[in-house]
């Protein structure tokens, strides 16, 4: 079983290089994760504030009359599906794709607007007729232009009666190690979703609305919807980089394990070769 020493050395060297790459990718993802997590954590209070406000407002006025609270008679349901552009992030996209497949099978009328190359490629291959639109190469930008445009588009189409309901499917960030696909209602708005408790609903506050109740809704609702898309995108990025960091961390560990087991094999093979050589020399000398 003389192992090929040269081949072993080559493999050890190449694994060492792979390890350097995966470690670098891990560190890049860790830095990006921190960045997006910061954005996410600081946007959440803003959304919560608007949500609280809307919740209390919905109780004290005839908010439920607003068209954004109504379920239209016409149209088809829409899913806005968030995935990543790039791979190498473990089972991140696989979980999301599994979930979107389930939703698509459940409701034959459901159509999808997809964000991210991985999701788009999947839908293009398996459900091309169900994919309404796709957005790729956002490149991790999070400046609000895309999210505001998206939110406005969704709102317009919803009010025009194109969509009967809109849901968001995105990777919910639980912790660095865990994120899971989450389906969330986007439109029509439900007062229950604003997190107003039974207790609070009994003591509705009589707000003064400046300048007019209509104007307040007109201003507040789109802002709420825009912020929601923004936060969802931030959460998608955060989860993506968390997943990639974990995947690259595992890859680095694997490289280490593989490297040490290969080094062990190399040393054994080298010793075996030396032993054989000595035996050959000794027996050669004895023969003389």
């Amino acid at each position, binding site marked *: 079983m003389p192992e090929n020493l040269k081949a072993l050395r080559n493999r050890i060297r190449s694994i060492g290089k792979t390890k350097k790459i995966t470690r670098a990718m891990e560190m890049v993802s860790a830095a990006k994760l921190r960045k997006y997590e910061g954005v996410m954590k600081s946007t959440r209070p803003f959304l919560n504030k608007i949500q609280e*406000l809307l919740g209390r407002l919905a109780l004290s006025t005839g908010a439920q009359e607003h068209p954004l609270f109504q379920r239209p008679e016409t149209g088809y349901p829409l899913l806005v599906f968030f995935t990543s552009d790039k791979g190498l992030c473990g089972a991140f996209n696989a979980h999301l794709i599994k979930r979107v497949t389930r939703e698509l099978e459940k409701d034959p009328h459901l159509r999808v607007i997809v964000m991210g190359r991985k999701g788009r490629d999947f839908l293009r291959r398996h459900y091309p007729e169900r994919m309404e639109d796709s957005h790729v190469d956002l490149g991790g930008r999070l400046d609000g232009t895309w999210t505001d445009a998206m939110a406005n588009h969704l709102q317009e189409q919803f009010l025009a009666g194109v969509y009967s309901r809109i849901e968001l499917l995105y990777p919910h960030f639980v912790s660095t190690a865990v994120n899971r696909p989450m389906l969330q209602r986007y439109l029509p708005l439900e007062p229950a979703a604003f997190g107003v408790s039974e207790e609070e609903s009994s003591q509705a506050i009589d707000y003064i609305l*400046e300048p007019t109740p209509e104007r307040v809704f007109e201003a507040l609702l789109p802002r709420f919807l825009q*912020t929601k898309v923004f936060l969802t995108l931030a959460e998608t990025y955060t989860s993506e980089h968390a997943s990639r960091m974990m995947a690259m961390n595992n890859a680095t560990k694997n490289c280490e394990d593989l490297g040490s087991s290969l080094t062990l094999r190399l040393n054994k093979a080298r010793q075996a070769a030396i032993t054989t050589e000595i035996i050959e020399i000794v027996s050669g000398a004895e023969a003389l």
Partner: protein
Amino acid sequence: MADYRLQIVTHQRTVFDKDVTSVTMPGEEGYFGVMANHAPIIAVLKEGNVDIRIGKKTQRVWISGGFFEMESNRGTLLTDRLTGIDIPEDEEDQP
């Protein structure tokens, strides 16, 4: 004079969270001021200056529009952009 709690929250972070005496801000139909114990109000704000008075000192900030809510002596001002407050400059401001 009585004070009340004012929070100013933007997209990015809570930039202000202090007790204030009164706040004057640009409502859609003109500037108005809010002091402590004001009735519950929700107002849409347009672009303009906000004067925050704490005791005898006044601080002026500019906002790009937003909302103001006041309920049981807790004021919240939601805005997209503002300048004038010494916001701790965040190195990771925007990607």
